[in-house]
Structure formats: C-alpha cells, structure tokens
C-alpha cells in the first residue's frame, strides 16, 4: 500500500512537469514578456525604456531557458524558466505582478474558500442522496417521473441565475442575510449561509439524477433479490443493503474533489464577496496578473492529482475486493 502511494506520487512528477512546461509556454512564449509589459502599461505611448523598466522590476528581463552571460549552472538557473517555473515545485509561488507575496495570499485565502466549499459539498451530498433514495424508492411511479423531470429542469438553469436570483430574492427583497461580504470566526456563518443554500440548490438536479441511476443499477443486482426473497422489507433492503453498496461509487466520486475544495468556487466567491481563492483567481484574470494565474494553475493541478491518489486509496478502504499493487 505504502509502496503504491509512493509510486503514484513519483508518477505525478512528469505530469506536473508537463503542466509546468505548458503554462510556461502559454505565458512566456505565446505572450512574450514584452507583450505582458504592454498589456500592463497600456498600448499607446509606451517607450521601449518603460517596457524594459517594467520587465526589470518584475524580474522578466532574463532569457527563457539559457543565459549565456553567466557561466556553469548559473547559465540555467538565472533564466525565466528556472526563476518563474521551477520554484513552483517547492510551492514557492513568488511575487505577483502587483508586488504581493502569492504564497502568503494563498495561505490566508484558502480558509474562507474552504468555509464555503465544504458545507456546500456535505449538505449537497446529504440532500442529493436523500432525493435520489426517495426517487429510487418510488421508482416507476409518477413521483419518480416528476422527480426526474424536475432534476432535468433544474439542471437546465444556469448557475448564474441561481446566484443572481437567490441573492436578489433573499438578500435584497427579504433582507434576511447580507448580500455579500465576509467575516472571520463564527460571524462568517451569516455570510456563508446564502451561498451554501444556493450552491446546494444549484447542484441538486444533476447530483440526485446521477445518484438515482447508481441506485437503480444496484437495485437490479442479485443480492437485492436475495434480500427481498428472504422477506426483508423494501426499506431494509434499500437502506441497509443498497445504500451501502451505492455509496462506493458516490464516495469515490466525492473524494476526488476534496482537495480542490481549497480552490473554492469562482462564481460564488466573486458574487458574494468572499475573499477566497476563487475570487482571487477571478481578480487575477481580470487584472491580467499572470504570476497569480500561473501559481493557481500549478496549485490546481497538484490538488487534482492528490485527489486522484486519494480516490484510489478510498477504493481500497470501502471495497475490500480492490487491492492496490
């Protein structure tokens, strides 16, 4: 088991190198540092001196891969690739184009993200499982069909409408909770409440429909028929036997997203003014702060890969038939 995990982490390295090279190409070769400087300084009336100054200020004035002016190892280390990209592997994110320490920002902002994303995940999971169980219990009846159609209708509404509509209705018309903002500690509750509810409602359509198909696949299996043949009630069969087995695909689907919870939700955070990593990313995109976007791309990939490894481990925990080698 340990050997397997270690090997998976070693496999992750070439993938991260690939991610790194790809983002490096997007940010430094497709857009040269000159272009970046022009984007920041404005298109018109930019002297080449101003561009050179900007590049020097932000450390973009080095060659891409090899620096012939210095000798030995320094020829490779005193380059853009080494300075801007290799540091990411040590989670040294450097300084943003606006001059802030990205690593410190991320550490500070990941908690509000988690405070929003974790309740959305847990409450959402519970709601979806409940609705899916209800639909599976009444399968084939009008209640089930109505439920499925309702799910499709809810899936067809854009997430933006849930957010804008919910914010307008609850925050502005009913004045129940503040429209946006954030506070630390327990005070955060009233700010997070509305986004969590909207997040759960937004995901309930797709989620419960998916879980329903998982249940229905499970319900047709032999052990369920055996259970019924023994004379167990439908409720016992559904809750004691089907639920446990259906949880295997559900839980493994959930585990993969757990690490990425830190990244937060782009939309929710920016609409509700929550100072998490999602709004951080959106601000960076809108201000064209390439250093932050690069750091977030790398962090996102790392967390995704961790999620994949956790999924594999969780398989062995919930399903003893699976052995990792």
């Amino acid at each position, binding site marked *: 088991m340990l050997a397997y995990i270690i090997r998976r982490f070693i496999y992750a390295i*070439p993938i991260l190198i690939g*991610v790194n090279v790809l983002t490096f190409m*997007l940010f430094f070769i497709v857009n040269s540092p000159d272009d970046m400087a022009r984007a920041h300084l404005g298109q018109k009336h930019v002297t080449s001196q101003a561009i050179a100054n900007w590049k020097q200020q932000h450390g973009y004035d080095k060659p891409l891969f090899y620096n012939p002016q210095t000798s030995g190892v320094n020829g490779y280390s005193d380059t853009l690739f080494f300075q801007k990209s290799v540091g990411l592997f040590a989670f040294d994110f450097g300084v943003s184009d606006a001059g802030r320490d990205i690593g410190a920002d991320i550490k500070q902002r990941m908690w509000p993200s988690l405070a929003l994303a974790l309740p959305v995940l847990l409450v959402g999971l519970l709601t979806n499982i409940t609705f899916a169980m209800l639909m599976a219990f009444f399968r084939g009846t009008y209640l089930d069909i109505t439920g499925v159609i309702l799910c499709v209708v809810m899936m067809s*509404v854009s997430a*933006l409408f849930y957010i804008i509509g919910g914010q*307008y209705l609850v925050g502005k018309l009913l004045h129940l909770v503040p429209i946006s903002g954030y506070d630390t500690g327990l005070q955060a509750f009233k700010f997070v409440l509305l986004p969590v509810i909207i997040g759960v409602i937004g995901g309930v359509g797709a989620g419960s429909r998916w879980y329903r198909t998982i249940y229905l696949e499970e319900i047709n299996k032999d052990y369920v028929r055996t259970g019924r043949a023994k004379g167990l009630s439908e409720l016992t069969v559904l809750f004691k036997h089907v639920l446990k087995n259906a949880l295997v695909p559900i839980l493994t689907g959930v585990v993969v997203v757990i690490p990425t919870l830190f990244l937060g939700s782009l939309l929710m955070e920016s609409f509700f003014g929550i100072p998490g990593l999602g709004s951080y*990313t959106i601000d960076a995109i809108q201000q064209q702060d390439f250093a932050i976007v690069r750091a977030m791309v790398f962090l996102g*990939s790392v967390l995704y890969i961790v999620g994949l490894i956790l999924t594999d481990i969780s398989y062995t925990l919930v399903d003893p038939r699976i052995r990792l080698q």
Partner: protein
Amino acid sequence: MTIQPVILWTDALIYLLLLVIIFFVVYARKHEHLRTPWRLVWRSHLAMISAVFLAVFVIIGLLDSIHFRAGFETPASNGVTHYSGEVESLFDKLVAPLGENDEKSYSAPFATHLYSKETKILANGRVVQVYPRLKYAGKQLANPELDRAADMQTRFIRAFWQAGLLWIVVSGLLVLRLTRYYGENYRLTLVKVLRLRYQVPWLTLLLSLGVVVFLLLLAIQLATVYHIFGTDKVGQDVFYETLKSVRTGLVIGTLTTLVMLPFAVFLGTMAGFFGGRIDDIIQYVYTTLSSIPGVLLIAAAILALQIFVANHPDAFSTIAARADTRLLALCVILGVTSWTGLCRMLRGETLKLREMDYIQAAHALGVRSRHIITRHVLPNVMHIVLIAVVLDFSALVLAEAVLSYVGVGVDPTTMSWGNMINSARLELAREPVVWWPLLAAFIFMFALVLAANLFSDAIRDAFDPRIRK
C-alpha cells in the same frame, strides 16, 4: 442593392458541420442498425417536443450565419460600389425593424415610455420631469395609457387565429402525407393520429408545431410594434439581442465538439488498440491536460489571444471578424480542455473491443490495423461518441455564460447570453430595478438547454446498450 458576401470562420465551420450531419443522416437511413435506435428516439414524446424547439433554434442560428456587407454608391464614387464596414446577416434582414429601432435608453417590456424621467421645457416656459414617449414602440397608439391593453389583446387574438389556420393546413398536409406512408385512407389515418395509435407520436409533433407557430406569429404581431423584452442601456431591443445570442450559444455548443472529436476519436482508439508505448504517451497527454483546472487554461489562452489581437490590429478587417476570431478561439480552447473525457471513454471501450472474437479473427485473417480500426472498431464506438456529443452540448452552452461572466468568454461586442447576464448584474443593483434583460436571457437559454437536455436523454436511452436492455 449590391451585397458582398462575408464568410466568417465560424460560418464556414457551421456549414461544414451541417454537411457532416446531412452525410450522417443519409448514411444512417441506409443502415438498419442505425435506423433502429433513431426510431426509438422518435417514439418518445419528450424527444419529439424538444426536437421541434431545437429545430427553431437551429434555423435561427443558420439564418444568422449567412453574413454579408451591404454595398452603397455615393455620387463621388463614380459608379464604384463601396461596402459598409458593418457585417449583417440574413437574419438581421428578416427581423429588420428589430435591430434598427433603437430607443434612447432603458424601457420596460411593452412600454410606450422611457424608464427614466427626463427634463422637458413646456411651451409656457415651465420645466417638468416627464417620462418621454418612445420613438418606435407603440407609436401607432394615439393614447397609449388607454389603448395599449386593447391593442395587445387584438394582436394576441389575431396571432391566435392566424396560427390556428396555419396549423390546420399544416396538420392536414401532414396527415395527407401519412396516408400515403401507411397506405390507409384519410379518415382512418386522421383518427389514428389523433388517438396516438402509430408508434411515432404524430399528435405530439403537431401540437408542439402548433405552439411554436403560435409563438412565432405572436412575436411577429407584437415585436413589430413593441419591445416585447424592453430595451437595454443603449436603447437596443432586448428581444433582438437574445435572438442574436442563439447563434453564439449554438456555435459554442457545436463547433467545440467539431474541434474536439478528431482528437478524441483518433487518440482514444489508437491508445486502446495499440497499447504499449503509444498508450502511455496518449494517457500522459490527457492526464496532464485534464489536471489543469479548465477555466484557468481557458483564461490563460484567452489572455494570450487578447494580447495577440491588441498587437496585430491590422489582421482583422471588421469588428465582426475580430469578434469571430475570439469566438472560434474559445471553441478551440474549450475543445482542447474537453476532449480528454471522451478520449478516456473511447480508450476503455477499444480495450474491450480489442479482445472480441471478430477483431481477433480479423487479425488472424491478416487485415491491416488501419482497416480493423476504421471498419470494426470505429462503428462500434460511434454510439459513445454520439451520446457524448449531445450530452456536452448543453454543458457548453451553460459554460459560455459563466466564462463570459469571468471575462474570458466571447468578445464583449458579440451578443451572447453570458454578456447579457453579465450586464444584468449591474442593472439589478439599479433603483428601480431593470430586470428584463436577465429575464429574456434566462427564458431563451433555459429553453435551449432544457430542449437539448431532454433530447440528449432520449438519444442516450435509445443508443446506450446498457440502458436499452
């Protein structure tokens, strides 16, 4: 009037896609194993209804994809025709008054007056704050406050009768066609259609056609004299804006697939079929791409494109061409980020197929790998491709709105639901609230996505062998 046709990149690709679909339809009609699942699709009531509504969206999108520049001659040009810098589409011409009747600023749906007061100096020199009359909407009414409701009612009833007549004619013709198809007399066919005795629910088709025709005629009756979804900040008709957004949504939903399919199908089947080193490389590529958060990759690429466009202003002759490049780039990038899922599925399916007896037999008979893939593997994974394509469509339409909100979606000058929602955010914060652009975008986007979702469900049920049994 002379015109100069303009073929934008996305137009060309849309018509290429149309050709591919026509080819596929002709091909599928000749092959019984493809006709059977399609027959199952058409037996579903929901599929029938959603197909009718989807067809309306597709027709709007196709009409909106024939672009041209209007030519004009000036006395100074000595017979040489100049072409306008503004690119128009056939659709613009068809709904002509909609796009041109611009008011001054916001006005509510069916309003005859502006939404905000303006200062007006009366003849006797007094200064008053009034809601000014709109320039175009409701100008046929002498006394808007009193006559508007009656006028709308007459137009509604007129549309109802027109639609009813048209519907009876169309239904009669369809039943006439069906008598020949089923070889029964007219009366019997009519009764069987009305009682849903055929496997295909023709009555459902007719009823949904009736609804569509009624909505269309109602829109014609009302939209020519009112702004049925109001006007936006610069006085543009919101109904026109949301109709123009249909093309953007369809382009994103379909061209992305067109971009991604070759990659996914080619690499997926190759990886599954050959295994070994090739499999390792392809798996590495798609794991790497899928581990980058999609929205960040899209953002990075769109930022790169923005800088390219800013540095090469000469490469684009019109604003439309520039916006179109961005739309196409968005499709390409969305395609690059979304092919990995399908590729993984195809790889898995090919791995399974490779061990099948008939493929082993083909190997043993000395058939070349290329031929095995094209003749034995590809036809057997096509249902997965089709299901993935139709399921992706609605997700992509929804994604457009989110990306435009983040600022990495379509060009701000392109009319799209995402851009409409984006501006609605500020409009909702106004006092009094401007809610109609959001409502219009919501209704149309919801209708398209819901129809696409229901239709794709029917296709999945008919084509997925696991569900079919």
